[in-house]
């Protein structure tokens, strides 16, 4: 057994907490579900392997050579997952800074706080590694199965990317902290994380659209323009890609370098972490006397004040704003495409499904916030207003926000084609209404601050929300081509929605 307060002792403590936390998240706090969750996980892993097999089959049947186009494709995949991992790591670092939980206990104990924070930085890297292995592992397994053990190097690259992105997130967040102070860092870090998470894929997509008029990132990466502007294939820049492709020499250098970078940055920042955490947590306990609102008292009908309250709370929620920004960011390539191809009438097949999918996902989040994430349920419940009227006002608030965000896109489409605008409008409305209905059927009272963990309260609701949004998006995409097949997808979406209703707790209420 490791000595109390040593690094391994803290690591064991953190591992136990993380394990229980993860278990609670997977089972939504119900221990009886453990077996069912295990079965689902196995099924998930098997289906991911099947998908990976289908996707990779045409590529791994032939010998992959580390030529320049392959190195570019592998490097962009690494950068793509790296940007997503950096975004996640920044979220984790911000959470560590601003969540008080056990920090006051630990910091008030006679222990070296740097040990705790070194372990916590390590835990972030570990969880990032595990998450990337969970998602990318099946693809690597298929590559190993079909192409041989040289592909094991890809696992090494995943670990290296996790280590680098974690310490990069630590360094970035601390830099923000030093630059703008603890109070503003929280929001800024969330926004930076959202931008970092999407910027690479969006940048690539935009470049692909404008240079080649294509939506295929791969075609863009293999284009003569890119091949002419990147360094030669012997450049050090391609070492991570070479390592992933089975070059052990490159793997040792890349993995060794990332471990060294991790240790160096952890050693540099862990001792300062305690000070930053204290500064950050004290901002959340010190009264933040921010003046807002007007002196004028405006009282309308209960429905009006409810809608106004929901709008105000959404607008004043920094995390939600950063998430919405992310949604809008992902909408920027199709928006640019709309502008670029204005008048040519060929964009809707891509734009409409993207709009519909985004509307469904955004509405799901907003509906959870307004319906389940009510911070004063007793107040609203004890008000002399019929429950149905309260719910209607909350749903109206969600639909107003969706309308506000998506109206400009529909208006843009209207300039191109009335039919496409109509399909987009119907799709956006149906996707948003479906997601809102699902949130309504599966509502479970929670605090708004639990928004991050909203997916854990009902796996069915989360899955259904995504699946039905995809269906509406597909139906919209098919409908703009004028194909009658769209009706089948519409019927499928309606059937899925009916199935979700049958499974929902609302049916039993």
């Amino acid at each position, binding site marked *: 057994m490791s000595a109390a307060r040593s690094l391994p002792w803290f690591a064991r403590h953190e591992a136990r907490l993380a394990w229980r936390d993860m278990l609670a998240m997977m089972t939504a706090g119900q221990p009886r579900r453990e077996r069912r969750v295990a079965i689902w996980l196995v099924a998930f892993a098997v289906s991911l392997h099947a998908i990976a097999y289908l996707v990779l089959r045409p590529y791994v049947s032939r010998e992959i050579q580390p030529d320049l186009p392959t190195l570019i494709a592998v490097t962009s995949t690494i950068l793509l997952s790296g940007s997503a991992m950096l975004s996640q790591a920044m979220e984790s670092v911000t959470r560590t800074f601003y969540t008080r939980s056990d920090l006051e206990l630990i910091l008030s104990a006679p222990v070296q706080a740097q040990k705790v924070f070194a372990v916590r930085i390590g835990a972030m890297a570990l969880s990032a590694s595990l998450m990337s292995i969970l998602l990318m592992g099946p693809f690597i397994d298929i590559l190993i199965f079909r192409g041989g053990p040289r592909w094991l190097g890809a696992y090494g690259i995943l670990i290296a990317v996790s280590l680098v992105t974690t310490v990069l997130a630590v360094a970035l967040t601390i830099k923000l902290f030093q630059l703008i102070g603890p109070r503003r860092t929280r929001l800024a870090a969330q926004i930076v994380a959202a931008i970092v998470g999407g910027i690479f894929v969006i940048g690539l997509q935009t470049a692909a659209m404008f240079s080649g008029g294509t939506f295929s990132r791969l075609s863009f990466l293999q284009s003569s323009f890119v091949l002419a502007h990147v360094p030669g294939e012997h450049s050090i820049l391609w070492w991570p890609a070479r390592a992933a492709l089975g070059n052990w020499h490159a793997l040792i250098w890349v993995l060794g370098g990332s471990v060294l970078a991790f240790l160096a940055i952890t050693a540099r920042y862990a001792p300062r972490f305690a000070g930053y955490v204290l500064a950050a947590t004290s901002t959340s306990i010190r009264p933040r006397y921010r003046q807002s*609102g007007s002196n004028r*008292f405006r*009282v309308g009908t209960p429905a009006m004040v409810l809608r106004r309250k929901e709008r105000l709370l959404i607008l004043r929620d920094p995390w939600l704003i950063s998430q919405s920004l992310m949604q809008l960011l992902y909408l920027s390539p199709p928006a640019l495409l709309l502008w670029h191809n204005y008048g040519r009438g060929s964009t809707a097949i891509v734009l409409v499904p993207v709009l519909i999918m985004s509307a469904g996902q955004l509405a799901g989040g907003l509906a959870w916030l307004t319906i389940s994430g009510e911070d004063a349920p007793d*107040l609203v419940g004890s*008000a*002399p207003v019929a429950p149905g009227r309260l719910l209607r006002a909350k749903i109206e608030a969600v639909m107003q926000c969706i309308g506000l965000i998506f109206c400009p896109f529909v208006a843009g489409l209207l300039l191109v084609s009335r039919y496409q605008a109509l399909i987009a409008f119907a799709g956006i409305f149906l996707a948003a209404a479906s997601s809102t209905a699902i949130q309504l059927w599966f509502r479970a009272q929670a605090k708004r601050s639990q928004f991050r963990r909203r997916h854990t309260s009902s796996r069915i609701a989360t899955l259904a929300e995504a699946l039905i949004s995809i269906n509406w998006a597909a139906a919209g995409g098919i409908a703009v081509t004028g194909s009658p097949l769209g009706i089948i997808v519409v019927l499928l979406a309606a059937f899925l929605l009916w199935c979700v209703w049958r499974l929902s707790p609302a049916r039993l209420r």
Partner: protein
Amino acid sequence: MNPDQTTPALSIKGLRKSFGRPAVDDLALNVRAGEFYLLLGPNGAGKTTTLRMVSGLLKPDAGEIRIFGIDAIADPVAAKRITGWLSDEPMIYDKLTPLEYLEFVAGLWSVEASVAAARARELLGWLNLEAHARERCEGFSRGMRQKVALAGALVHDPKLIILDEPLTGLDAGSARMVKDVLAEKVRADASVVMTTHILEIAERMADRIGVISGGRLVAEGTLAELRDQFGRGQASLEDMFLTIVEQDRAAE
């Protein structure tokens, strides 16, 4: 005589609620108009469950609840219109200012804007929150949050005020302020039903005291009546309370 003076502010008959085991079991009690009624009981006695049913936040399994003669189960909206509820956990919106919060509550109860504005300012003044009226609640201390929530419970000028442990976690100054506001409301003819573990309040403020144990009302009366029934000589309320609860547990 005003008909409201003869109609009980709160009348409960045969109230039952079970969460696997009975939480409230055939409870009956009456609170007179203009009365400060204190509900005492050990942890898990059913006080909060009772008050949540009265406020329309929980549906009873059986029984009758009337608020100034209005059937609160058949017509909850009408009953809620004249009721104010405050729970032990101040539930307010962090991102709203006290003024915005009161504006929202006034809207829910359909209070006319000018009346609501005047009442809001009066309440914020009483509760010493004027200086913070336009600051977001996110940095407020527990005491300040509880005072904002109390102002919310009173902004529509309810005839029946229901408070569940409103003084939990408040410092002496804030607790005094809340007690003063409640006393003022009772003077203005409002009725108050309140639970607390602070027995000193019962001795100083309550017109009548009800003791709940095991979901049933086991004793009720003024302090003097309870003393006559359960106390010996100058027994403190704490001694009487413990005697009542012990007697009830022994009887079970």
